[in-house]
């Protein structure tokens, strides 16, 4: 399992893996926003956390269709299916590797983009923390979509359509936790706790459902 984790990590970080494309896309999306809403620094500081969250959500959706597609193309998906280790565990490890390869760089890149958005230190820290807590949930939800669409020839767009509605609660609580940290009256902990709860919930549901979908799409 650890070998699988590092194999996936290496595959996505090295050339052609597309892990860095996600970060690049994230930066581009965030950089486009000031052109749309105008370079008003106060406005950007106010909507900054929300923009970072939306950008991170879109960027992590981008690589999801490759989660099982590459394995299916070279046939190693069948080997993973036939293994003796439970498929749920395999899917979980693959999700973890995917998160480490695409989600973690987004979290690392977010403070710099936060500076672009004229956010203060507290807002940047809160955004980073909530992204760290919420990005795994997006990966686990996305695994279900990727497993469902793995047999489709052009499943990439469909994955986003299927996954986005389910990822909306993550976005809501991530953004509200960030704003709660910045603005005084609202408490930070309750939305953050709910965000963690969503992540844990989908860490269980996601791999189980993705494993079921993979099994059924194989035969």
């Amino acid at each position: 399992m650890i070998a699988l984790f590092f194999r996936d990590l290496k595959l996505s970080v090295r050339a052609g893996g597309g892990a860095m494309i996600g970060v690049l896309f994230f930066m581009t999306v965030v950089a486009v926003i000031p052109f749309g809403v105008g370079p008003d620094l106060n406005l950007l500081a106010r909507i900054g956390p929300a923009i970072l969250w939306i950008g991170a959500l879109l960027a992590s959706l981008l690589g999801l269709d490759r989660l099982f597609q590459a394995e299916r193309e070279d046939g190693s998906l069948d080997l993973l299916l036939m293994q003796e280790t439970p498929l749920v565990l395999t899917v979980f490890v693959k999700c973890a590797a995917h998160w480490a390869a695409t989600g973690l760089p987004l979290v690392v890149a977010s403070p710099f983009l936060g500076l672009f958005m004229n956010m203060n230190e507290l807002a940047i820290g809160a955004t980073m923390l909530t992204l760290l807590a919420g990005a795994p949930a997006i990966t686990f939800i996305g695994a279900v979509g990727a497993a469902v669409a793995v047999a489709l020839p052009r499943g990439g767009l469909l994955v986003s359509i299927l996954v986005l509605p389910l990822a909306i609660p993550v976005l809501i609580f991530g953004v509200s936790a960030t704003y709660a940290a910045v603005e005084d009256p609202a408490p930070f902990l309750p939305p953050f706790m709910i965000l963690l709860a969503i992540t844990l919930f989908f860490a269980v549901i996601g791999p189980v459902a993705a494993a079921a979908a993979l099994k059924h799409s194989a035969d």
Partner: protein
Amino acid sequence: MSENSLAIRKFSDLANPTRFLALADRILPWLAALAALFFAAGLWLSFTTEGDYQQGETVRIMYVHVPSAWLSMMCYTVMAISALGTLVWRHPLADVSAKSAAPIGASFTFLALVTGSFWGKPMWGTWWVWDARLTSVFVLFLMYLGLIALNRAMEDPARSARVSAVLILVGFVNIPIIKFSVEWWNTLHQPASVMRLDGPTIDPEFLRPLLVMAVAFTLLFFTLHIAAMRNEIWRRRVTSLRRQAARHAGRETLAP
């Protein structure tokens, strides 16, 4: 096949599509007639009862809005049960049921959203608010559309049924969120006033037409659902007949 063997004794007997078609043919006219009857009564009641002292005539929107919102959730529940039937019992009709329920559910959700919007404009002063109930119903609508797109994207009905069943079950987490969103969060949408443990808090003047309309909508849903299932079975038969015809056509030209 003799007429006798078409009798349905157990639920699993429905797995035979021919039996189901026979049953559907028998009950569809009755269901449709009952639905029409309840609709006539419900519409008559909803236009003759008194308007609200505060909301005036716009309260009548409720008689369409609330039943279609209930139906949108019930339809998803029916789909989730069918998805269980597909994955656990491999019931051959379960995937037909789930597939044909999706467009109906999407229509009811759309109706609930649109009527809610019409009602929100005079009462709240806005067409749309991003509060928890409205947002979660909108998410439900998007999920219906995603499921329809997924069903369309796959050629093989058996395989698409199984993967979309997984997705339906994952999406079911949204249904309790919709139901309890008005209690968990402080929303503009009013909390539940009919389905409560301590009895409905709504005035009987409004409750009577509402319940009649709810029964009418439920009957309409089952009529449409059974008709759509029948159509789906027919469509699959036509497809397989066409495939057979194509195969035979090829054989005849090849063998002189």
